[in-house]
């Protein structure tokens, strides 16, 4: 176990992405870092945050040290407000009850499109990945926060396959394809936090993580990045944030 002073990339990701959530929101969280970060936000400063899981849970209240292996396990239901069918919880997105979707990502492009289906040509894939799950539904129907490791091979100009739509081909293309709501809101990585330009819908750095330079972010990104004129530097993880995170995930299931 790392000492108090060392923070792993996954821990940083969980803490910085938890800061994107607001008290009173309804958040649809995927398994892994999103589940952990949403729980961190709920326990630390947003007791009114309502967490939804695609297994069919409203108002999840995850128990420290009992993180579920997926968002479909009975551990997700402990102390929840409601369990319901998995189609029913996904339909809440379509009806409009969800403020923000929160997912991890394997590969992302300049417009925030996510790929979790194929590496290489889908007709003859080099690697078949697990697929969308609820990712496509969440990203089609609500505003999205994505938390992911920042590597050049994961931040590409064009994804091999659009599993979960971001802003598609930029500008008004998302709306024209029939997706009238939602869209990529924030991408949080172990290097920086990004939003998307309101007109072009291209990815833009708005805050650097502590000790990270613009050059380093660009060097780890497979397309030319924009940087916001008022580029911020994120506050480092506080002792309180780290302590709560390690209390929630003592086995380091998600933060190894």
């Amino acid at each position, binding site marked *: 176990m790392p000492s108090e002073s060392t923070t792993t990339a996954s821990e940083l990701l969980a803490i910085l992405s938890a800061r994107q959530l607001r008290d009173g929101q309804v958040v649809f969280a995927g398994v*892994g870092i999103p589940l952990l970060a949403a729980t961190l936000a709920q326990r630390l400063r947003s007791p009114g945050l309502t967490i939804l899981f695609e*297994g*069919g849970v409203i108002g999840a209240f995850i128990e420290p040290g009992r993180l579920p292996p997926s968002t*479909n396990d*009975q551990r997700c*239901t402990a102390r929840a407000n409601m369990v319901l*069918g998995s189609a029913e919880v*996904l339909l809440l997105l379509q009806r409009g009850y969800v403020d923000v979707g929160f997912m991890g990502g394997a590969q992302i492009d300049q417009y925030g499109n996510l790929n979790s289906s194929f590496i290489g040509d889908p007709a003859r894939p080099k690697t078949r990945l697990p697929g969308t799950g609820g*990712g496509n539904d969440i990203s*089609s129907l609500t505003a999205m926060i994505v938390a992911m490791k920042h590597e050049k091979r994961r931040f590409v100009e064009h994804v091999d396959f659009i599993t979960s739509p971001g802003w598609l081909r930029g500008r008004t293309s998302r709306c024209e394809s029939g997706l009238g709501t939602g869209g990529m809101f924030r991408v949080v990585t172990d290097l920086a936090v990004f939003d998307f330009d309101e007109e072009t819908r291209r990815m833009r750095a708005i805050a650097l993580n502590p000790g990270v330079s613009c050059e380093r972010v660009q060097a780890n990104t497979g397309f030319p990045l924009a940087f916001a004129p008022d580029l911020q530097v994120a506050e480092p993880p506080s002792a309180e944030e780290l302590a709560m995170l390690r209390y929630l995930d003592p086995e380091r299931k998600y933060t190894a």
Partner: protein
Amino acid sequence: MPLDVAHPSASQYPPEGLVPSYAQLRKELASRDRSLRRKVMSLEEATSLVNDGDTVGIGGSTMSRTPMGMIWALIRARKSRLSCVRSIVSSDGDLLYGSGICDRIITSWFSQGILWGVSKVMRHHVETGSAAYDEWSHMAIGMRFRAGAMGLPFMPIRSMLGSDVVRQRPETIEMICPYTREKLLLVPAINPDVALIHVQRCDEFGNAQIDGLPFMDVDLAMAANRVILTTERIVSNDQIRRAPDHTRIPFFAVDAVVELPYGCAPHECSGVYEPMMRHMESYVAQVNANPVDGMREYLEQFVYGPESWSDFLAGIGVEELIRAARAGRSIDDA
């Protein structure tokens, strides 16, 4: 081109036969014996309700309430050419592909579990082309079951539009809504030939009660043309009638009842046991190290080898079963 319902062109439609006609759907249902009768049978007897080439709907999701015992029995019965459809697929999909009884899986996510990365068994079969994985969004799978359960040929949805997931699915149709002039995606009903569903309890007629997450199992049961229930225990009809608000599947939708304690092992059954993680971890290590030989050895040791389901459970081990049961029964203690 989106389909304009006011001016449809025949070439824009998917092939005929993808969805059964309403007459066919009603004929299938009318031919079933829906009388109030005892349906209890053995696991082996229940396998005769599944025919080679059937479309099989599988209840539960990921590692939860998976009818693993029924899948185990179908592998032992050497079924073939099954197409399986489920909300999210875990190691059940590995076993279906690896045993060769299934050559197509229709789902939204397929790997053993997020903790273990990408299933090498799934990758091996899909990347070599020996089996197909048809990917739909999770909600689309739910709406396909829902349409089937409602006796309707399709449901409109607002996701999948604009993505490459929809480009892989010629079964879908983009439509301009005649009311709002907005784009919608139509997904076809799915009425599986047979559904496999595991529940905590049911009576001998098939009135089934489900605790915890119901997933898509009610729609699946109502959409399917036959339903096989496996259950942790068979209870009296009086007990069902004491809590009718817990009954999720009515007896007339059920064709077979099999009492099968620990019927989801090594997956979980809400309130009864959690996943048997030691078994899962060693399984994943073995098949991901070698998706062909590792799988063959697993099937020999844990599927073909055991004399019975109890013998299979003995292979998982009493200590592991008790650990899983203790965790499952204490889920609401917090």
